[in-house]
């Protein structure tokens, strides 16, 4: 039995002939991320249906709790209301990340198991950080920031600047991918083990039963608790927190 792990499936290829960008690939990543967006938006619409000023229902309470949690998270980490317009962005980033990570529970491939997704998010965050730095200190101040504390440090400063989005993207991607890899390995290994054990039953019954990977029931669920639930939520949280912190830091100059 062979076990191999590959990237997202490509369902459809639209040839474009553009040199660098290449063909448009309709991959599993794209389709599932659409599903993720639909889930989040649907949930938002569901939660905010007939909002009331008084005597609110459970759904409205949840909606208000979500908004308030996002608001408090951003405010307590940036110290004040300066970044209030960033709150929906943070909420969008976090919710997309969490739902993308957790959608692997349904057997779909997480969009976050594709580096393109995290790279895109990290680049957006990086642009925001840079924009905030330039806004705080001006273009000259931004460029001058690379020469501190002494001129010799400039290459290292540039390196560390570029390392920010790369590390953010790779951290998230690595965690999710490792979950995919380990889950795949464990499923395969347990299938082999159950096949081997059930093969010990003599006759046709053993032949038939060995086809059923009975050991795949149970243990992977426990591991999935760590790799899907804990790691998935944790990575989304870390990515979001880093976004907030970096942007808040950048604005302070």
């Amino acid at each position, binding site marked *: 039995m062979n076990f191999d*792990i*590959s*990237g*997202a*499936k*490509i*369902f459809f*290829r639209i040839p474009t002939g553009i040199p*660098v*960008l*290449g*063909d*448009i*690939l309709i*991959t599993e*990543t*794209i389709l599932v*991320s*659409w599903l993720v*967006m639909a889930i*989040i*938006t649907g949930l*938002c*619409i569901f*939660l*905010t249906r007939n*909002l*009331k*000023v*008084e005597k609110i229902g459970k759904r*409205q309470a949840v*909606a*208000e709790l*979500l*908004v308030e949690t996002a608001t408090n998270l951003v405010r307590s980490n940036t110290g004040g209301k300066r970044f209030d317009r960033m*709150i*929906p*962005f943070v*909420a*969008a*980033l976090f*919710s*997309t990340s969490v739902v993308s990570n957790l959608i692997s529970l349904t057997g779909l491939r997480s*969009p976050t198991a*594709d*580096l*393109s*997704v995290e*790279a*895109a*998010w990290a*680049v*957006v965050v990086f642009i925001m950080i840079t924009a905030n730095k330039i806004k705080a200190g001006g273009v000259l101040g931004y460029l001058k920031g690379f020469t501190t504390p002494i001129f010799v440090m400039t290459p290292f400063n540039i390196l560390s600047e570029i390392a920010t989005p790369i590390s953010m993207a790779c951290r998230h*991607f690595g965690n999710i*991918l490792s979950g995919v890899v380990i889950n795949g390995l464990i499923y395969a290994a347990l299938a082999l083990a159950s096949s081997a054990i059930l093969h010990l039953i003599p006759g046709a019954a053993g032949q038939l039963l060995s086809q059923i990977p009975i050991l795949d029931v149970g243990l992977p669920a426990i591991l999935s608790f760590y790799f899907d639930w804990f790691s998935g939520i944790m990575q989304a949280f870390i990515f979001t927190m880093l976004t907030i912190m970096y942007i808040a830091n950048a604005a302070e100059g």
Partner: protein
Amino acid sequence: METQQLVTIVPWTFIATILNLFLQLYLIKRFLFKPVQEVIRKRQEKADQDIRAAEKAREEAESVRSEYEKNMANARAEASSIIDRAKKDAESRSEQLLRAAEEQAKNLKTKADQDIRQERRKALNELKGEIGGIAMDIAGKVVEKEIDEKDHRSLIEDFLKNVEEAS
């Protein structure tokens, strides 16, 4: 089925993800943040309004209370003045009455005195005449002799004088 590499960046997926992120940002703003913030704002407004209304009601109650207290004080003053006046009235009235009664009583008394005196004089006169007649009768019977008119009269007069003194 064809698959992409495990660790790679597909340019179009990269671009699509950026667009998706901003689309999601818009959707989450439009469908979660805007309505919820709107409803929270409305609630805040309503709470402010309620507080303002309560404040106003309190002020009104305060003014009503002070007015009531003022009225009460006025009423109390008026009542006490009425009572004073009534007391004074009653005093003067009673004095008047007393004086009138006294006067009346005095009048009555003097009149009664006069009446009594008059009655007494009348009675005395009557008695005088009667007693004189009786005395003459008795004397005539007892003495059985005619004394002259003059002696007779002086006797009677004496007697009467005695009677008068005795009475």
